């Protein structure tokens, strides 16, 4: 790792404390050689209204998604993007964003598909930085281009496809959408327009743990003890079995993936990014409606 980790006591209780930095730590380390700060938001022009000095912008829709196929960019595309943003393979990347780091966690997960080693989240994200009265700037992005190697994506370890979910039945599934989406009252998050799923409900046997339960009021992650109570005690994720998390298009479940993998230390957690927009429109896949998980069909 290029830049030292944040030694904060709070983080030390998490399984991988090196994956988080505090706002104080970031303030003190801005400008450190080898450190690149990335803002990744839901809102495509929020960065331009003011961002952390020196931060570059990576947008989930225009930068990370392939513009034609429903997939992420490939190794060459990722290399070109990161090079343009001044990121090298050994850079320490700290990502932050709006909505309790919902989209920042999504970007971090995509970085992980390409095996970028040192990528961290700013605990509390954009909101906490602003609430603490720290500096923002409207300066245009001014990255010094860097060389980033072409590394092909390695999907299998952390990304699940529809067939993987069908083969996974009998092991834990986590649905991180709102209770209304889970029960089948609606197919999109409350206050979001309908987005392309033909059927409503959830994948059989999936437990409901809305993603935002992992975030505190100030947008930071909840403590280790609180997260253990939610995910281990309540949802029964004890780390003995592989887990798949999903939501609507895989963004909210990236946040949960981060919590399970890096804060609780569960191994073999995958994010099903096809999520409900695929499952809810696919032909001949089982669906359960109502607030109970339902039983797992035979794996196929």
């Amino acid at each position, binding site marked *: 790792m290029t830049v030292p980790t944040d030694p904060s006591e709070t983080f030390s209780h998490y399984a991988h404390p090196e994956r988080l930095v505090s706002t104080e730590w970031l303030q003190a380390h801005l400008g450190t050689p080898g450190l690149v700060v990335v803002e990744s938001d839901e809102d*495509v*022009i929020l960065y*331009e*209204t003011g961002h952390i000095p020196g931060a570059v912008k990576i947008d989930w*829709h*225009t930068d990370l998604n392939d513009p034609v196929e429903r997939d992420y960019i490939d190794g060459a595309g990722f290399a070109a993007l990161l090079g343009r943003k001044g990121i090298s393979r050994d850079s320490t990347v700290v990502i932050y964003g709006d909505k309790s780091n919902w989209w920042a966690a999504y970007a971090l997960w995509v970085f992980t598909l390409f095996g970028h080693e040192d990528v961290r989240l700013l605990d509390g994200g954009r909101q906490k930085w602003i609430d603490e009265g720290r500096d923002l700037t409207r300066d245009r992005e001014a990255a010094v281009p860097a060389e980033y190697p072409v590394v092909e994506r390695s999907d299998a370890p952390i990304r699940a496809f529809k067939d993987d979910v069908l083969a996974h039945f009998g092991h834990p599934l986590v649905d991180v959408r709102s209770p209304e989406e889970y029960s089948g009252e609606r197919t999109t998050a409350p206050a979001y*327009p309908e*987005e392309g799923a033909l059927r409503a409900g959830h994948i059989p046997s999936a437990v409901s743990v809305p993603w935002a339960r992992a975030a505190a009021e100030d947008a930071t992650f909840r403590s280790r003890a609180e997260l253990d109570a939610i995910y281990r005690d309540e949802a029964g994720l004890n780390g003995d079995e592989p887990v798949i998390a999903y939501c609507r298009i895989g963004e909210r479940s990236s946040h949960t993936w981060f919590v399970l993998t890096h804060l609780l230390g569960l191994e073999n957690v995958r994010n099903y990014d096809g999520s409900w927009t695929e499952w809810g429109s696919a032909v001949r896949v089982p669906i359960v409606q109502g607030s109970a998980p339902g039983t797992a069909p035979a794996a196929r």
Partner: protein
Amino acid sequence: MSTVDLPGQLAEIREDFLALEQPDRLMLLLEFSNELPELPERYRDHPDLFERVVECQSPVFIFVEVDAERAVHLYATAPAESPTTRGFASILAQGLDGLSVDEVLAVPDDYPQSIGLTQAVSPLRLRGMTAMLGRTKRQLRERVAALD
């Protein structure tokens, strides 16, 4: 894309966007966001008049007014931390301002899809603007029915 003749100011906004490269279109959207007109004094303390555009992810509220000359005015509020949504509201508020009732009702429903933002902004966000336009027209029909 619709072939109906657009009112001048909406056509001009569309041309301004289409004349730009993709990243600059977002900068223009940001300008619109910054220019969302303040509510006139008389509506500032009347949240009851405003309708929430529930299709938008952030709290956006609109109110359609028909003045004594039967010209239409759209007033909108949206939070600063949702500049994209503010930008959409501002495009409509400025693009529709002062048009006649019939002109507003004739604005093609796919106007939001026609201003060159479908690549830069996700489909979900653009649908929020479509919903804003749809709700504007519905409110307008109600206002006119109440006047006649």
